[in-house]
């Protein structure tokens, strides 16, 4: 890699538009805050609805999720939740794991887990909503 591209990369302005540290850091910071703000009403709704649901047997839980309002809110809640969780876990990993190799490995594993959980949860909600 030439010095020029390395410098550009650090500045976050390389030809691919996928810079490191500089602009990416600012963007992550913003997304982290945006997800935090979005999670305030979403998590309060989630906890309120689950608390006030009279029964959480199979029929009760199923019909709660199958309701259109719940399905829509869950599809908004789940990706936001896992995005925010991953952002936080990433920060913890970056602070406490010293070996660069282990750090990268831990972050990639957590990313995979977050993506898997997001996709699986949304698939589950869609399946329940459609009554499949």
């Amino acid at each position, binding site marked *: 890699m030439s010095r020029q591209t390395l410098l550009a990369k650090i500045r976050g302005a390389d030809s691919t538009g996928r810079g490191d540290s500089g602009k990416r850091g600012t963007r992550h910071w913003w997304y982290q805050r945006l997800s935090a703000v979005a999670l305030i009403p979403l998590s309060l709704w989630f906890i309120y609805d689950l*608390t006030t649901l009279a029964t959480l047997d199979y029929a009760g839980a199923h019909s709660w999720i199958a309701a259109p309002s719940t399905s829509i809110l869950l599809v908004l809640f789940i990706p936001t939740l896992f995005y925010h*969780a991953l952002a936080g*876990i990433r920060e913890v990993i970056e602070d*406490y794991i010293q070996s*660069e190799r282990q750090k990268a490995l831990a972050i990639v594993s957590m990313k995979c887990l977050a993506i898997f959980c997001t996709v699986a949860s949304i*698939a*589950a*909600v869609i399946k329940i909503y459609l009554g499949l």
Partner: protein
Amino acid sequence: MTTRQAPLSPFWQYKPQLTSVLSITHRGTGVLLSGGAVLLCGWLLSIAAGAETYNMVNQHITAWYGQGVLTCFVFSLYYHLCNGVRHLFWDLGMGLEIKTTYRSGYAVIIASILLTAATVYVRCVQ
């Protein structure tokens, strides 16, 4: 490549203070809630899998230990939410004076305890 010893986090070095304890609790509850998010995924999958699987899962949720874990999650969520709002104000440059950080810190503790108590109460009378 040689790795330098990273500096220790402040909470390892200083005498615990309200502000530092609240800060590390924010992280702790965040990590706990991330685990809770994975469990939420499992819960949704069990409902999608059908009554038999769900009942197997639900039997643990309704047991005393399941309810205990849920209460910890509820408290963690309220704490992380309240303290998160405190952080958002700091991001806006508000409430950064020492006296205010202590006041908002106490407010976070009281609010999260009251909200947890209210939630447990509502759930019990349901």
